[in-house]
């Protein structure tokens, strides 16, 4: 009985240690201002469709509407980017000016700046497509807790399995809320207004 208790206690200590080890590196990094241990979002330095470096700070004062995807995505990404562009059309010009819609690739190997720039421009002139080197993309994915993994297709090409969520970040860069993909454009617009856009 005592041995069991000691074992359980030791296990608890080990687990607590592991938990702290998993959390601490994230906190030790350039974490955004937040009080809780779990944060969504953070600083990024990526490259836009013109090859220009873009950071999260460039969007201070506006709401960022962020969606992660990739250009070779045949179905989910065009559907969501289309929904975003149709939602933007439902905002007043003043509201629209306060929203920065961003599309961040989870497939930087294939998505060059020119490719992602032309891709998002097909949906909306306001959309900003962002890519970068693998390390910069990995950092952005980690901050937003985005899952992205290659999935080999039958003929040797690959698709990306990825988190498919729209993140809304406030004018100070802090997390405001999420909008699920599949949400109708009119509802996306309503949610943005409700978030204070």
């Amino acid at each position, binding site marked *: 009985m005592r041995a069991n208790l000691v074992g359980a206690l030791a296990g608890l200590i080990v687990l607590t240690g592991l938990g702290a080890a998993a959390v601490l590196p994230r906190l030790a990094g350039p974490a955004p201002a937040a009080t809780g241990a779990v944060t969504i979002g953070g600083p990024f330095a990526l490259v836009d469709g013109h090859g220009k470096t873009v950071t999260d700070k460039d969007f201070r004062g506006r709401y960022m509407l962020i969606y992660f995807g990739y250009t070779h995505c045949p*179905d989910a990404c065009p559907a969501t980017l*289309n929904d975003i562009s149709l939602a933007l059309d439902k905002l007043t010009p003043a509201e629209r000016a306060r929203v920065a819609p961003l599309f961040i690739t989870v497939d930087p190997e294939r998505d060059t700046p020119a*490719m992602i720039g032309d891709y998002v421009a097909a949906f909306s002139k306001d959309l900003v497509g962002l890519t970068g080197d693998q390390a910069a993309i990995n950092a952005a994915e980690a901050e937003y807790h985005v899952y992205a993994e290659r999935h080999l297709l039958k003929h040797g090409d690959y698709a990306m399995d990825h988190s498919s969520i729209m993140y809304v970040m406030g004018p100070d860069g802090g997390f405001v809320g999420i909008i699920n993909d599949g949400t109708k454009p009119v509802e996306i617009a309503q949610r943005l207004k409700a978030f204070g856009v």
Partner: protein
Amino acid sequence: MVGLRKFFFLEKEAKTFARLSRTSRRQPCKSFLVLFLKKEVLSVLVLGLCLASPALAAPVVVTSAWARATLPHQDEGAAYLTLQSKSGDTLSDVSSPEAGMVMLHETAQKGGMSNMVDVDHLYLPAGQSVALAPGGTHLMLMDLKHPLQAGDTLHLALHFEKAGTQNVTVKVLGVHATGPVP
């Protein structure tokens, strides 16, 4: 009497033939068989043609077919359609002269995740409408020979296990389309 025995014998043979045949729709062939027997003109060739012809199987009704215009730098795209088979069927393969390969995929969107899943066979329950639509099951067009622009026409050959091959023309709609306007 001899004629009748001959009839049963031949019908039995025809049934065996039909079982061996890949397209196993017998009903329309049977009436032809009876017609030919009555006239005592039985041509195995005609019977063979009759059994092999997929046009005699209940065709799958294809509606709302459309493809999204391809996006810049992409040689892949997606097409969508709605299928209905009166007697039940299975879509086993799709090809297109405009694409190197057409794959049947499902975008499984659950819990904020988007995963592409290969679908080998799409079962069409009898009488039920099966819709391929954005964010769900779609035909992924790989290695397109040229970009698809709004207003273009795409050709698809749908291979069904029972109904055989059906050719459909698909309208290409702009990137902002969410489906064909009825």
